[in-house]
């Protein structure tokens, strides 16, 4: 039983990891647009972030998996769930970045500009290292939330942990045991994530010599 449920770990990790990565990358231009001085762009980004987060994840998955094939874009369940969670993650990551950027004093931008740094080097060498340190715990918290949300992929037939637990419970009629194992697996997977984040956070803090 344990072996079959654990066989879903691979897909759970793939969906969580891929969505987090894509969401983290998409979040970068999104947060830039969200902070843009040009009002239409800012409004658009704000609307995107708010609307994406206002719709439940399961509705996103169904919209993509059942809705898109109507216009000939047929996706398998794994890609559909990665696309769905990437869209959701991009909105949450953009907000995470934004709160990180808000914590950096205005003087840092002014100082970098005064030194003659252009947008890219300023972002790369002055702002990002500081923002990253502040944002990391929030990113780790979101990664754990996304790991748990990835259980929803079972509803569109991805063979991940929850799906396997469902199969086992139907085959053996031991639903309580099967889903307890599934729940413990999720908890067990989020603990190393939390510990690793704390460790990296501490190392980064030492490196940057800040409290």
């Amino acid at each position: 039983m344990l072996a079959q449920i654990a066989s879903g770990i691979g897909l759970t990790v793939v969906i969580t990891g891929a969505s987090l990565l894509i969401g983290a990358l998409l979040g970068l231009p999104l947060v830039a647009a969200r902070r843009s001085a040009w009002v239409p762009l800012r409004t658009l980004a704000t609307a995107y972030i708010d609307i994406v987060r206002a719709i439940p994840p399961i509705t996103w998955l169904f919209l993509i998996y059942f809705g898109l094939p109507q216009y000939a874009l047929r996706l398998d369940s794994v890609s559909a769930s990665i696309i769905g969670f990437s869209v959701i993650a991009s909105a949450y990551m953009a907000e995470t970045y934004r709160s990180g950027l808000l914590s950096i004093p205005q003087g840092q931008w002014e100082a970098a500009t005064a030194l003659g740094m252009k947008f890219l080097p300023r972002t790369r060498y002055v702002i990002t290292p500081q923002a990253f340190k502040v944002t990391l715990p929030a990113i780790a918290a979101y990664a754990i939330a996304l790991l748990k949300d990835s259980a929803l992929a079972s509803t569109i037939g991805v063979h991940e942990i929850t799906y396997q637990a469902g199969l086992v419970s139907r085959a053996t009629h031991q639903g309580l045991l099967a889903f307890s194992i599934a729940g413990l697996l999720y908890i067990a997977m989020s603990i190393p994530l939390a510990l690793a984040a704390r460790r990296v956070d501490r190392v980064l803090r030492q490196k940057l010599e800040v409290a």
Partner: protein
Amino acid sequence: MIFLDQWISWLPALSPGLGVSLSLTGLCLLFGMPLGLLLALMLEGPVKPLRVVALVVVEVGRGAPALVLLYLLYFGLPEGGVTLSAFATGVISLSWTTGAYASELFRSGLAAVPAGQREAAITSGLRGWSGFRYIILPQAIRISTPPLASLGVTIFQTSSLAFVIAVPELMSKAYALGSITFEYLSVFALTSVLYGSITLVALAFVRLAEQRLSRHL
């Protein structure tokens, strides 16, 4: 607008589902919030066995996906000899999730009450429970209210998960409608609009209430 005509004709089929989603959310908040407060008090309290029990309930409630908890109770309760309707199982399971998250919000609210308040309560002769009940708790609840309201909005979104255990809420009505009409994209787009508009309006109210509350602080 063909889309709009379709949507208007579908609304009567979806609105009972929306009603179920809203009552599910309401019941989960009704049971989950007091549960959260109770768990927070158990965690902060002096009795060790209670603390351990509360810790397990909270950590499982927050650590395991809400979907897994739903399945766990849906398949697990009948095994223990308790047979409930899907709706009741959904209420219990989502109240567990609500309570687990709410307890952390109550706890951070309790931690945010300045230590001076505790000391002042003791000096005024309000020791132990009465000091806690009349001095600390009212302030903690006030601090916790905005995040608890946001949690309420999140729980409305989470209620969509009850679809998987065949609760006739909005998502399952939408799925049924989709499998009849084969207009999945349009049906789920309408569902997204319903969820999204209610969530955004509710969040706007939360923000307004937050401003009102913080005006006097």
